[in-house]
């Protein structure tokens, strides 16, 4: 019977698939976000005396193609082309946010909003740096130190992530509140740990506010030849580790019993309990996994050897933590899609840097775009409903001429289903 269905039916079936609607609504959010950014850039160009309209057009071009910008040529025009430095830097900066995006995505699958990623990131940073800088590299091989520091960062993040999980599972306290509190406790705790620490960079002048780079102990992430491919950038093998993590999480969530149980708890906790799944333990486990991913993000970022940690963090939380939220939302909580949305966010950030370097604008335009995208993702469900209403109308219209479509089936297509295939 399926073989004889006309191709219009197949098209409609595609339109009704939940994952397609999620992807489409994400694309619409991105489009609207970029349009808002471009409008702001043009308005500022028109309103300001120093920036001409041509400057505004350049700003728009940089927002859209900033990743490919090579700078200005002799005539002062922007030149675009394959820029290995930009792409390498984009991949380098995408590494931590892919991991934090995974962290938020895993928690969302279990029905939890992990807004505690900055706190877990900070605790992971502290653990990683302490382990990486305290084990003397003449006693232990530096790759062993790297692995220990990485695992230590993940473990510390997991422990910190379990705290809101325990509050949610056993004390029935909204995990968002617990996460916000643990974020700020972590910020103060990390400042306290490093306040009189010997790891502060006393060697270089004026750098006492920073912890030493891990290269001070000869520990750094290997490059695996990526730096020859994207020469001049800061890229290292961390991006490979992040992609591997995404694949592993995808396998866990989609192909294992544990993943199925986590998704069941997220979709309908009561039904899951009825089926024998211990909901409380799964919630704590899910937050632990999410925390370990955020801790791993911090580990990958600070083990790269060319990043310094500003240890007085009690005033503000790291942006890599909160940037995981739009990445997870845009990716529809699909781990593989997180890789791409992470790269997209990172490309936007590079475009912001280009705006700052080559025009009179500043890099915050791309932050505005990201915030608008998050705002739109909040009602992605509404966009999905709008999309499905349209396809229902087309089905009703097409019903007059083609073979009757099973209206009953499309109506019980569960739109509220949260577990993605």
């Amino acid at each position, binding site marked *: 019977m399926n073989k004889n269905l006309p191709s219009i039916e197949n098209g409609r079936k595609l339109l009704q698939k939940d994952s397609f609607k999620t992807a489409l609504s994400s694309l619409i959010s991105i489009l609207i976000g970029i349009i808002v950014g471009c409008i702001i850039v043009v308005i500022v160009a028109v309103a*300001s005396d120093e920036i001409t309209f041509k400057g505004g057009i350049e700003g728009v071009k940089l927002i859209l193609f900033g990743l490919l910008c090579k700078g200005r040529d002799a005539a002062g025009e922007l030149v675009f082309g394959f820029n290995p430095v930009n792409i390498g830097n984009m991949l380098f900066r995408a590494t931590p946010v892919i991991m934090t995006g995974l962290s938020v995505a895993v928690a969302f699958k279990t029905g939890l*909003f992990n*807004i505690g990623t900055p706190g877990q990131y900070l605790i992971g940073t502290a653990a990683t740096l302490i382990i990486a800088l305290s084990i003397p590299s003449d006693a232990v091989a530096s790759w062993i130190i790297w692995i220990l520091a990485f695992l230590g960062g993940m473990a510390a993040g997991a422990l910190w992530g379990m705290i809101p999980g325990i509050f949610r599972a056993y004390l029935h306290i909204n995990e968002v509140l617990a996460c916000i509190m643990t974020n700020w406790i972590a910020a103060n705790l990390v400042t*306290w740990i490093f306040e009189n620490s010997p790891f502060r960079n006393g060697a270089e002048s004026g750098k006492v506010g920073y912890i030493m780079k891990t290269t001070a102990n000869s520990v750094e992430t290997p490059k695996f030849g990526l730096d020859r491919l994207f020469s001049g950038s800061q890229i290292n093998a961390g991006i490979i580790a992040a992609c591997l993590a995404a694949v592993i999480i995808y396998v866990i969530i989609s192909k294992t019993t544990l993943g199925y149980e986590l998704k069941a708890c997220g979709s309908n906790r009561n039904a899951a309990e009825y089926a024998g799944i211990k909901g409380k333990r799964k919630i704590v486990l899910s937050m632990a996994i999410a925390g370990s991913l955020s801790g791993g993000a911090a580990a990958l970022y600070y083990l790269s050897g060319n990043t310094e940690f500003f240890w007085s963090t009690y005033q503000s939380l790291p942006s890599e933590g909160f940037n995981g939220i739009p990445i997870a939302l845009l990716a529809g909580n699909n781990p593989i899609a997180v890789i791409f949305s992470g790269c997209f966010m990172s490309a936007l950030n590079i475009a912001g840097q280009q705006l700052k370097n080559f025009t009179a604008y500043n890099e915050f335009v791309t932050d505005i775009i990201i915030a608008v995208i998050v*705002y739109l993702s*909040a009602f992605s469900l509404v966009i999905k409903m709008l999309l499905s209403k349209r396809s229902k109308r087309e089905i009703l219209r097409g019903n007059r001429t083609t073979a009757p479509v099973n209206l009953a089936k499309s109506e019980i297509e569960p739109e509220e289903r949260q577990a993605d295939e």
Partner: protein
Amino acid sequence: MEFLIQQTMIYAVPLLIVALAGVFAERSGVINLALEGIMIFGAFVGVLFINTAQRYELFSKEQAQGLMLLTMAVTALSGALFSLLLSFAAVNLKANQTISGTALNLLAPALVLFLINVIANQNVLSMANGDAASWFMLKRADLGFTQTEELNFFERTFLIRNYLTTYICIAIFIILSVILYKTKFGLRLRACGENPHAADSLGINVYKMRYAGTTISGALAGIGGFVFALTTANASSTGDVAGFGFLALAVMIFGNWNPLSIAGASILFGLFKCIAAAYATIDINGDGVFALAELGISTNFYRMLPYLITLLVLAFTSKNSRAPKAEGIPYDKSTR
């Protein structure tokens, strides 16, 4: 001792106002996580207004108090407008309120830093001339004291070297708490947060009430942001309020959504912040002994303490928590 009381009030008053902002939104049924973002926006608008007024010489230094009051009104309006983004998403589009709030928390600093860089070519916007203390603090001459008159304890602590905003905010707090608990409007607002379906069955427009609650919340958070920038940051806007909005959330939870407890909680948390900032120099009874410094507890512990005790309180009293029952759930008439 006067220093301790004055500093505590400076930290406690913005907490008070912003926690009340959270209460108004949540009592009407909308979780307002965007308090931090609205504070940042309110601080920016307030500082921009003062800066512009000074550059175009609309207010002289003698009229500074009038400028401050006008700025408070302007920031209230701007906070209300910014919160419309949240209320539109939460009420009309039935969006996830925690994600919308987080989006506004991301949008506000980005927008503010962008505009500050465009306007002032640096990352900070301050007053055009003078500083907050010299312009806006209450001085001896304002209150009719001479320069060398002896002042008693009450006058030294509560009148001189204070800002008028402190007392205005306390007055706003008292008035709005009375409105929330003793008027028909307040009762209907609270009903929309506890059981909106029941309220709807009586003819109350739940959508309008939630809009009202969130807009009042935005106005209060805007005022709180401006007062914070004025009193603790010397009237400068940096696109950041150092987590004060989240601390106000903690005050609201610790105070069990109840104005009197919130007042107590904000004084307590203000005290902790004051101690964290100045504990080496606090001389409690003026005998030259810096008792707190000798205790040897790190200032980071004092900074952590508000969040720690909120977590502990959450842990032990979650059963008695008086969180509005229908908060965070978008209201849909068809589900009645």
